[in-house]
């Protein structure tokens, strides 16, 4: 009796494991390797969405500047793994810094986490709209700094961004180069996929563990009723700062991966629209529900690419010409999707069970 569901769960995990392992080869063979690249990006978005989910989904703190932490992680990686600093400050750097990935990523996580606490500290008394405005401002400040820190000292190289960033190396092999394994050529995007997948699984694991703990409960308690949480003995200041800090940490890791993957970073990648995008992944998927957030991230990461791929030929065959370009169509569909989901599934596409019942109850009462 009890062995059956356990066996089923193990079988399920094994199946998912096999599917994830062969995914890049299947996708690469059917759609081409540019789609494997898109899958890699989807993994980065999953990390970002899960990080933001700690702040918004668990603790209920509306953060519109989350992408700043992604930027911090990305620029840190860029500075420590590219010739930029050596070119800009030849007196200080005789050779270009080439930090190994196992050192840069944790450092990026740490620095982003500190930025998270820095953002959190002055906003502790704010909630809802006010918090959203302040965090939005914070995100923009970081982006504007990156844009302008090319003078008097050229730290970020301004709007041109930083080039020639070295790809992550594992076991002496750069992940942007193909690798021959057992007679099979494994392309770079596939290797990046496995690297990102491992870190994504780690992030999921950490999120699940935190959620099922004293801290996860404290976050949700603050979200549900901050006054009662304080009366229950929760140090809301510390617990909120922890949420900001940990959420930012994931953003920092994802940012580092992004920089090593692209080989190039510029302030353009870290605008408000990116923050909104990640927030939508959390909200559409199911705030506070880890599988829902993952679903939201995957859907919204794939949607624009699917449109880019399908919108032009479909319109051409229907109308004989392209009426709406894919980029506008993306924003249009995106807006429609948001309205539809918020109207009919206000708790998200895949909400957690208890939460769903709560909203159902509200509907009955209304």
């Amino acid at each position, binding site marked *: 009796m009890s062995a059956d569901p356990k066996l089923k769960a193990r079988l399920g995990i094994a199946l998912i494991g096999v599917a994830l392992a062969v995914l890049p080869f299947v996708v690469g063979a059917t759609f081409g390797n540019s789609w494997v690249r898109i899958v890699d990006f989807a993994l980065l978005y999953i990390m970002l969405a899960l990080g933001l989910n700690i702040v918004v989904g668990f603790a209920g703190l509306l953060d519109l500047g989350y992408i700043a932490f992604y930027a911090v992680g990305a620029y840190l990686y860029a500075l420590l793994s590219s010739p930029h600093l050596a070119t800009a400050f030849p007196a200080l750097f005789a050779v270009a810094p080439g930090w190994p990935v196992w050192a840069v990523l944790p450092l990026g996580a740490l620095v982003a986490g500190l930025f998270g606490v820095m953002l959190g500290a002055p906003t502790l008394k704010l909630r809802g709209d006010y918090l959203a405005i302040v965090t939005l401002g914070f995100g923009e400040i970081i982006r504007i700094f990156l844009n302008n820190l090319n003078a008097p000292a050229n730290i970020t190289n301004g709007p041109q961004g930083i080039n020639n960033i070295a790809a992550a190396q594992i076991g002496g092999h750069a992940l942007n180069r193909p690798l021959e394994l057992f007679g099979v050529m494994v392309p770079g995007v596939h290797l990046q996929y496995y690297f990102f997948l491992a870190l994504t699984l780690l992030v999921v694991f950490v999120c699940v563990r*935190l959620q099922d703990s*004293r801290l996860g409960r*404290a976050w949700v*308690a603050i979200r549900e*009723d901050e006054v009662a949480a304080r*009366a229950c*003995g929760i140090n*809301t200041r510390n617990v909120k700062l922890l949420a900001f800090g*940990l959420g930012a940490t994931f953003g920092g890791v994802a940012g580092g991966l992004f920089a090593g993957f692209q080989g190039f970073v510029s302030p353009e990648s870290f605008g408000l629209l990116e923050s909104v995008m990640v927030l939508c992944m959390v909200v559409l998927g199911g705030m506070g529900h880890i599988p829902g957030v993952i679903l939201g991230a995957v859907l919204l990461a794939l949607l624009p690419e699917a449109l880019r791929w399908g919108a032009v030929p479909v319109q051409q065959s229907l109308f004989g010409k392209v009426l709406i370009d894919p980029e506008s169509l993306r924003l249009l569909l995106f807006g429609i999707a948001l309205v539809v989901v918020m109207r009919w599934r206000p708790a998200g596409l895949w909400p957690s069970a208890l939460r769903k019942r709560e909203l159902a109850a509200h509907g009955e009462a209304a």
Partner: protein
Amino acid sequence: MSAPLLEARGISKRFGGVQALREVSLSIRAGEVYGLIGPNGAGKTSFFNVLTGLYSADQGEVRFDGQPLPLGVPHRIAGLGIARTFQNIRLFGAMSALENVMVGRHIRLHTGVLGAILRTPAARREEADTEARAHALLRYVGIDRLANQQATHLSYGDQRRLEIARALATEPRLLALDEPAAGMNATETAGLRALIEKLRGDGMTVLLIEHDVKLVMGLCDRVAVLDYGEKIAEDVPDVVRRDPRVIAAYLGREAADA
């Protein structure tokens, strides 16, 4: 008798033009059920809010078991052993009844980020112990069968019980209940009364705000009366009931309201 468990001295609190509390002093002995009554807007809830740290006081101090209370710092006050319920029920709506009580254990637990992520044996033990204690508390207040129900799905009376269980989870030495019988029917009120008697029997000190005069007079060892933020009487129920100032306060308000 022994020194009081709680001693408030000269507590004042003002909101703009309203003097919610005017130099209120009172002392509560360990093991007693102490009633706090007064007309609407008299300042009873404000006193609770100061006592539990949600508001800071303009003046005055509170000593708890001989030590000064860190007014304005609710989590430390909870840690020292004062727990409360709310006049307008404040539960964690999206959580189950059991989880609500588990949150109440927060301050008595030690698991940090690393312990939670690695799920160390200590963390695992603590988590199992928390769940077991939460079940025991739900049983104590009589709603263990509802442990896995969402808090907002409980009946009104059960939500009040759940709030008491959550407060007890912090291991308080003083339990402050803000109008726990409000909105309850006669059966539920009788059940509540039995629960408070049980708490007293188990040695808990209870501070009770209540409008139900019969409940207060029947249950409390001593009663204090607030009117316009001022304490106008403090004694055993039979004496307070006959106090002309108390009668005037209640009748005066009712006459003015009519």
